C-alpha cells in the first residue's frame, strides 16, 4: 500500500512538471507564427510557417517511428513507406473530392491517411514483423528500396517523376476555412499533431504498449507469458503505420504534391535521425529531434552549403557526449533541478559554453572558408558569414579561425572535465537524497 502512495506522489509531481512543459510547448507552437510575423508587409513569414508545419508533421512521423525503434526495439530503415504511400492515397482522395466523386470534410483528411497507413503497414508488416533485429532492419530497408523503385517506375498511381498534385482548397471544410493560406494548414496540422501525440502517449501506457516494451527487452520470455511476440510486433507496427499515415496526409495537404521522395531513403533516414538524436528513452525525445533536424536541414541547409559537415559533427558529438539523445541529456538534469542544485552547475556550464562557443565559431569559419575556396565560390569575391563579407584569401581569417578553434577547444575541454567532476559530485548528492 505504501508503494502506491509513493507512486502517486511521484506520479503527480511528474505530471505537473510534464503538463506544464507540454502546455507551454503547445502555447509556443500556437503563438510562434504571430511572434515572427512580418510586420513590414503585414503577412505571415511564409518560411517560418513552412518550417513550423514541417516540424509538426515530422514530430508525428518521428514519434510513430519511435513506436517501433524505442518501444518495440525494431530498427526500421524504410519507415518513409508508411508516410509516402498514405500521402499518395490522400492526394488521390483530394483529387477525387475536388472532382466531386467523394465528400470528406477537409479536417478529417488526415484520418484517410491514417487508415491507409494502417492498411499498408498491416500488409507489409505481417510478414516483416515475423523477424526482428538485423533481419527486420534489412527487410524494411529492402522494402523501402523496392517501393521507391516502384514509385519511379509506375506512373498510374505514383504519377512518375512529377508526382501527383492536388489543390487543398476543397471547399469541404467543417469550419468554413478555405485552407488556402499556409497558416490555416499549419493550425490544422498542429491540431492533428496534438491529437496524434496524445494518442501515442496514451498508447504507450496500454497493455499493448507495455508488452511491446517487454518484447523489446526479452522477446522469448513473452511467449511463456501467453503472448505471441509476432502479434505484438505486428499490432505495434500497424498502429505506427497509422500515425505515420496521418503525417503523410498532412504532408500531402501541406505541399499539395507527392513525389517518390516521400517514400524514399532520405526521409526514412530522417525518421531515424530525429528519433535517436532526440532520444528514444523519453517519450517526447523524438519531438525535440524533429525540431532540431528540420532546423538543421532546412535552415542551415539554406544558409550554408557545408551543412553536411555540421550534421556529421553533430551526430558524432551526440554519440560521444549524449548517447541518450537530447532528451536524455535534459532528463538527466531533472533531479538536479528539482533539488535546486542547478545553480551550482550554471557557472561550470558557462565556463564550458563560452570557450565552446568560440571553438564552434572558429570551426564554422574554417569550414565555410574551406568550402568556399574549394568550390571556387570565391570568384564571387567574398564569403558571406556572420552577416559580413569575408575575403577567403586572407590568411588572417584562416589563422583566426584555427586559433579560435584550438584555444577555445582546449579551454572547453579542460573546463568540460571540471564540469564532469562537478556533475559526479552533485549527482552523488541527489541519488543519496
Amino acid at each position: 500500500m505504501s508503494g502506491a502512495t509513493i507512486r502517486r506522489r511521484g506520479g503527480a509531481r511528474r505530471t505537473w512538471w510534464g503538463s506544464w512543459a507540454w502546455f507551454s510547448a503547445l502555447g509556443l507552437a500556437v503563438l510562434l507564427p504571430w511572434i515572427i510575423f512580418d510586420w513590414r508587409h503585414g503577412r505571415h513569414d511564409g518560411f517560418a510557417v513552412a518550417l513550423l508545419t514541417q516540424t509538426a508533421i515530422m514530430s508525428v512521423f518521428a514519434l510513430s517511428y519511435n513506436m517501433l525503434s524505442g518501444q518495440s526495439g525494431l530498427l526500421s530503415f524504410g519507415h518513409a513507406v508508411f508516410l509516402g504511400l498514405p500521402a499518395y492515397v490522400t492526394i488521390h482522395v483530394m483529387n477525387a473530392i475536388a472532382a466531386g466523386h467523394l465528400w470528406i470534410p477537409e479536417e478529417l483528411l488526415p484520418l484517410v491517411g491514417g487508415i491507409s497507413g494502417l492498411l499498408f503497414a498491416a500488409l507489409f508488416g505481417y510478414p516483416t514483423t515475423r523477424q526482428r533485429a538485423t533481419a527486420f532492419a534489412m527487410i524494411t530497408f529492402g522494402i523501402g528500396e523496392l517501393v521507391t523503385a516502384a514509385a519511379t517506375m509506375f506512373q498510374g498511381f505514383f504519377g512518375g517523376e512529377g508526382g501527383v498534385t492536388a489543390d487543398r482548397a476543397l471547399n469541404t471544410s467543417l469550419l468554413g476555412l478555405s485552407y488556402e493560406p499556409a497558416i490555416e494548414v499549419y493550425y490544422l496540422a498542429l491540431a492533428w499533431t496534438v491529437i496524434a501525440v496524445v494518442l501515442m502517449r496514451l498508447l504507450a501506457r496500454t497493455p499493448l504498449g507495455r508488452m511491446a516494451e517487454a518484447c523489446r527487452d526479452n522477446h522469448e520470455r513473452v511467449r511463456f507469458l501467453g503472448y505471441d511476440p509476432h502479434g505484438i510486433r505486428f499490432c505495434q507496427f500497424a498502429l505506427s503505420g497509422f500515425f505515420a499515415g496521418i503525417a503523410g496526409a498532412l504532408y500531402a495537404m501541406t505541399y499539395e504534391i507527392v513525389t517518390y521522395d516521400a517514400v524514399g531513403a532520405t526521409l526514412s533516414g530522417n525518421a531515424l535521425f530525429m528519433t535517436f538524436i532526440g532520444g528514444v528513452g523519453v517519450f517526447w525525445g523524438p519531438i525535440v529531434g524533429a525540431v532540431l533536424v528540420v532546423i538543421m536541414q532546412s535552415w542551415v541547409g539554406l544558409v550554408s552549403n557545408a551543412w553536411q559537415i555540421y550534421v556529421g559533427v553533430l551526430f558524432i558529438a551526440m554519440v560521444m557526449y549524449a548517447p541518450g539523445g537530447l532528451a536524455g541529456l535534459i532528463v538527466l538534469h531533472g533531479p538536479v533541478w528539482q533539488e535546486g542544485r542547478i545553480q551550482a552547475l550554471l557557472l561550470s556550464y558557462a565556463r564550458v559554453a563560452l570557450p565552446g562557443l568560440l571553438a564552434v565559431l572558429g570551426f564554422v569559419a574554417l569550414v565555410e572558408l574551406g568550402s568556399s575556396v574549394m568550390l571556387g565560390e570565391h570568384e564571387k569575391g567574398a564569403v558571406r558569414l556572420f552577416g559580413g563579407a569575408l575575403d577567403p584569401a586572407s590568411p588572417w581569417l584562416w589563422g583566426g579561425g584555427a586559433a579560435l578553434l584550438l584555444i577555445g577547444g582546449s579551454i572547453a575541454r579542460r573546463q568540460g572535465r571540471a564540469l564532469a567532476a562537478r556533475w559526479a559530485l552533485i549527482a552523488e548528492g541527489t541519488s543519496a537524497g
Partner: protein
Amino acid sequence: EDSIRIGLTDPMSGAFAQTGQQNSQQAQYLLDSINSKGGALGRTFELVTYDNKLQPSEALIALQSMVDHNIPFVWSNAGSNVAAALIDGVEKHNARDPDHRVLYFTAGSTAPELTNEKCSFWFFRFVPTTEQFAEMLVRALPPEVKKVYLLNPDYLYGQAMQRDSTKFLAQYRPDVQAAGNELIPVGKVKDFSSYIAKIKASGAQALITGNFGPDLSLLIKAGTEAGLDVSYYTVWAGTGGTPTAIGPAGNSRVFALQAFNDNMADEQGDAALKDLVTRFRATHDYDFDAGSWRAMFELLQAAIQKAGSTDPAKVAQVLEGMTSRDMLGHEWAMRAEDHQVLMPYYVSVFTKDVKYDSEHTGLGWKVIKTYEGKDLALPTTCKMKRPAT
C-alpha cells in the same frame, strides 16, 4: 530596391551538388557580364541560391523563403520532379497571394509534360524537352545505321525518351530497326557488361541513350572495354564529369546533344563570345556548358526592360512570343502557347580534333549538326489559363 533578384534553387549539397554548384557559378559568371553592361532598368541582377537537395518538399520551402524576401524570379534546373512541384506551388501561390506573385523558369527540367499538361502562365522553359531530344538524336543518325539499340533510365523521363525515340524512328527513319529496348534504374547497375553483351548480340550499330552521370560513363566504359562497335548517341555525355570518366576511349564514338560548347566560339569567330569562353576557362576547371544561358538572361533582361518593371505578370506577358538572337546568330523564340523556348541545339562528337578540350581529357566537343529552334517545334497540348488582368 536596388538589385533585381533571381532565386536559384538547385541541389547544392549531396549527391547532385555538382549540378547546383556549377549552375550557380556559371549563372553568376553570365550575370556579371550582363550587369557590367548595365543590367535592366538601371538595376543589376543578383543571384540568390537556395539548396533543395533535389527534393520537391525542400524546393517548396525554398520557394516560401523567396516569397518572404519578395524575390520575383524563381529559377531551378535539376529535376523535373522539383520543377513540377514548383510549377504547382507557384501557380497556387500566385492565385492565393496575388500581391506577391512570382515568375518561375527553368533551364534544366526537360519533362515534356511541364509545358503540356502541367503548363502554366507563370512558368517558362528555356531548354528543349526530352521529346525534342529524342527527335534530335534520331535525326542525327547517319544513313548507314540500320539497327539501333535504345537504353534509358527507368523513370518518367527515360520512359518518355524511349517512347519518343521509337516514335521518331518510325517517322524519320522507317529503314532503321530498333534492335533492343532497355530501361535501367538510375545508379543501381555497377557492371554494364551484361547489357553490352546483349547489345552486341543484337547487332546494333548505334545506341541511343538518355542516361546521364555515372550510369552513362559506366555504360560507355564497359562498351569500349568489351570492344563493342557502336556509336553512342547521348543526350548528356557533355555534362560535367562524364567526359573525364569516358576518357580517350570514347574518341569519335560518343555523340552528345548540346546547347553550347567551348569550341563554338572559335568556329563562329565572335570576339565577345571568344573572350567570354577563354576567361571562363581560365578561372574554372570544367566546361562552360551553360553558355547558352546568356541568351536566356538576355531575353529576361529585354522583357523586364520592355515591361518597365519586375512585376511578374507584366514580365510574363512581354516574354510571351518574344524573340532574340544569341551570340552565334541563331534565333531564340519564347512560344506563347506553352512558354516553351524554341532555341538552337547541336549534336557534337567527342574527338581529339578540337581546339579546346573538355575537362583536360585531350578530347573535346565538335559540332557536327545544328538544329534551328523552328526545326524543333513540336505540337503542344497546353491549355494555358491566363490571369484575368
